[in-house]
């Protein structure tokens, strides 16, 4: 009994030292770390190698959530298939949905592609809008600001440090965006198809036209009928680029490419999803390089 108590005290002492933040996806982890600095301890739940919709709700993720002071989610329904059962099992009232400690990053973003009619007849639609806003680096600053606001409120003692880190991050990110915008200008007006509506925020900002998707409906695997129609469309409209995410099968994209002479380009969707994308900058540099060269 005494032992349990001393373990308790030890643990709570450790917990006091740093503010524990759990982030659902790696890119959110990077932003929290940038504005949180040494005052926060960040744990990322999802592996970037997997489809962000289909993360296995591993019980091993529960202890981190159970100890978290703040949980940062992408939101807009992206985690609906895996985070709620973990949250329920973690029994942590601090990060329950609806409390201050549960932070939904999508609240900082003006979501696009909000469906006018919602039905599962249209596949796995997100009623809130497209949740893949992290593919556009211009969305990083609003999220960083939002997270700083939340961190400052939950851990008021380090407010000044968080504000300081944020302003440094913003200037660093503005400089990065200047270069990025210049690189992206090269592919303005380009026509592409993508596997899933994963890159819409990025494509929209840089006037790249996303003509169609390889999956016939969101979350539905490609069908031969849809694929053949897509090939015809691409031949007619002379579309030469296929944007492929790292986690879906690439067979269909390669087949389409072989019939149309188009190029399959794997575009990373998150930090660490492919090699050499370990930082936010490296992620977007890779995106620009692959998309616009």
């Amino acid at each position, binding site marked *: 009994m005494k032992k349990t108590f001393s373990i308790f005290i030890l643990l709570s002492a450790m917990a006091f030292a740093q503010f524990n933040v759990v982030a659902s996806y790696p890119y959110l982890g990077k932003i929290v770390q940038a504005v949180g600095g040494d005052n926060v301890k960040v744990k990322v739940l999802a592996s970037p190698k997997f489809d962000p919709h*289909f993360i*296995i709700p591993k*019980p091993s993720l529960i202890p981190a959530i159970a100890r978290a002071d703040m949980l940062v989610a992408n939101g807009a329904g992206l985690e*609906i298939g895996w985070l709620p*059962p973990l949250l329920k099992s*973690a029994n942590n*009232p601090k990060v329950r949905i609806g409390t201050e400690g549960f932070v939904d990053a999508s*609240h*900082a973003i003006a979501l696009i592609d909000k469906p006018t009619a919602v039905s599962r007849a249209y596949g796995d639609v997100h009623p809130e809008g497209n949740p893949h806003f992290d593919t556009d680096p211009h969305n990083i600053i609003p999220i960083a*600001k939002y997270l700083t606001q939340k961190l400052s409120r939950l851990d008021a003692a380090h407010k000044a440090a968080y504000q300081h880190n944020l302003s440094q991050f913003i200037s660093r990110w503005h400089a990065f965006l200047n270069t990025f915008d210049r690189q992206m200008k090269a592919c303005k007006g380009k026509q592409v198809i993508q596997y899933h509506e994963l890159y819409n925020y990025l494509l929209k900002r840089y006037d790249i036209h996303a003509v169609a998707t390889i999956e016939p409906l969101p979350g539905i695997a490609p069908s031969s009928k849809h694929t053949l129609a897509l090939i015809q469309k691409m031949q007619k409209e002379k579309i030469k680029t296929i944007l492929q995410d790292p986690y879906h099968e690439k067979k269909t994209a390669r087949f389409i490419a072989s019939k149309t002479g188009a190029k399959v380009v794997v575009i990373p969707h998150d930090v660490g999803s492919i090699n050499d994308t370990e930082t936010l900058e490296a992620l977007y540099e890779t995106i620009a390089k692959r998309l616009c060269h």
Partner: protein
Amino acid sequence: MTKKMIFLSLAASATLFAQSDLAQLKAQLAKQIHATQALQKRVEELEKKQIETVANTNKTTQAPSATFDQKSFLPDIALILDGSAVGRNIDNSTYETYHIPGFSEYDPNEESEIPFNRNRGFNFNYAELALHSTVGPYFDADAIFHLSPDEFEIEEAYITSRTFPYGLRAKIGKFRSEFGRINAIHQHAWKFTSKPLVYEALLGGEGINDAGVQLQWVLPTDTYMMAGLEALQGSNDVSFGDTEKNNLYIGYLKGSMDITDTTILLAGTSIAHGKNEDGHDTNLYGTDLTIKTALDSYSNLLWQSELLYRDKKTENGTEKQAGYYTQLVYQYDQNWKTGIRYDSLFKNISDQPDDLDRYTAMVEYKPFEFTKFRLQYTYDRSKAFGSNDERKNLSEILLGFTVETGAHGAHAF
């Protein structure tokens, strides 16, 4: 906006062309381009500002609603439907007399309790209505109504605490116990259409599903460990059933770790202590092991096994019985899955057979996440029929469908 301006300026330049000379036109055009660029810049700036405003202010724009409108408090509602077509080498009237020698008996005066897929031919098993809602700051409420063609049953109805500290959570009401690996899992989420033989033999068709209280604790360790205690009425009459007062106490410890980044191990051990219908002690022990390897986002291999052991006191001494199942399920992609399972009741009371076992194989097709078709073949050597306990091997082929529609929460690991 910008596009319109460009068009207008082009139109304007077109009319100008007719009247003026080239030099003048060039100057005009340069001016126009300059103006358009300035406008574009302003639009970009405004857009940026707008995004920043969204980030800085919490969303306050909400559609006005009618006074006293309570629509937004409606619970999440899900509907689950399940049915099947069955081919079997035993006719329906004989099948209804089945029992497992040493574990259950055939009573001609009682109606048989076969919950699913009872008939050769077509079966509509159930429509299940599941409601979930937050009651207030302190509790969530869940209710699952199991509707079969001639029965309305409150499968589960309970409240769960939301704000307990130290990793604790309490549940009060009627609920499926988390004894073992699959007792708490609903039929629509099972990997095979039939329940493991050892569960059916020791806990019947319903499992431990009872009124009572539950307390669970997530230990403050880096490795996931969860301990649970339950106090229940004890109305499961296969192993327990003495309900003169609340008689059933259950405890379990579950732990999980990642063997590699993509290989997960989950293990548990459980004990249930209660009184059987004759008022004597019954202890039920369970141990389970699950290993899952993710091959990619949509493909994985799952191996799950569970052993149950029952120690039941009677007038004349102690009955010791045990069994296990082991199953291997391979998910090929988002649509296809296949699996095999072996069931065995290897320990029985004296003068009863201990060679009771069963083989099951299935192929599952999911055209969409919430729609499932399953073809399952079963070869069962554990059943006896009628009042003279005649053992017969049973072969069954089953094609089932299950859909989940509405607001249904994701399943845990």
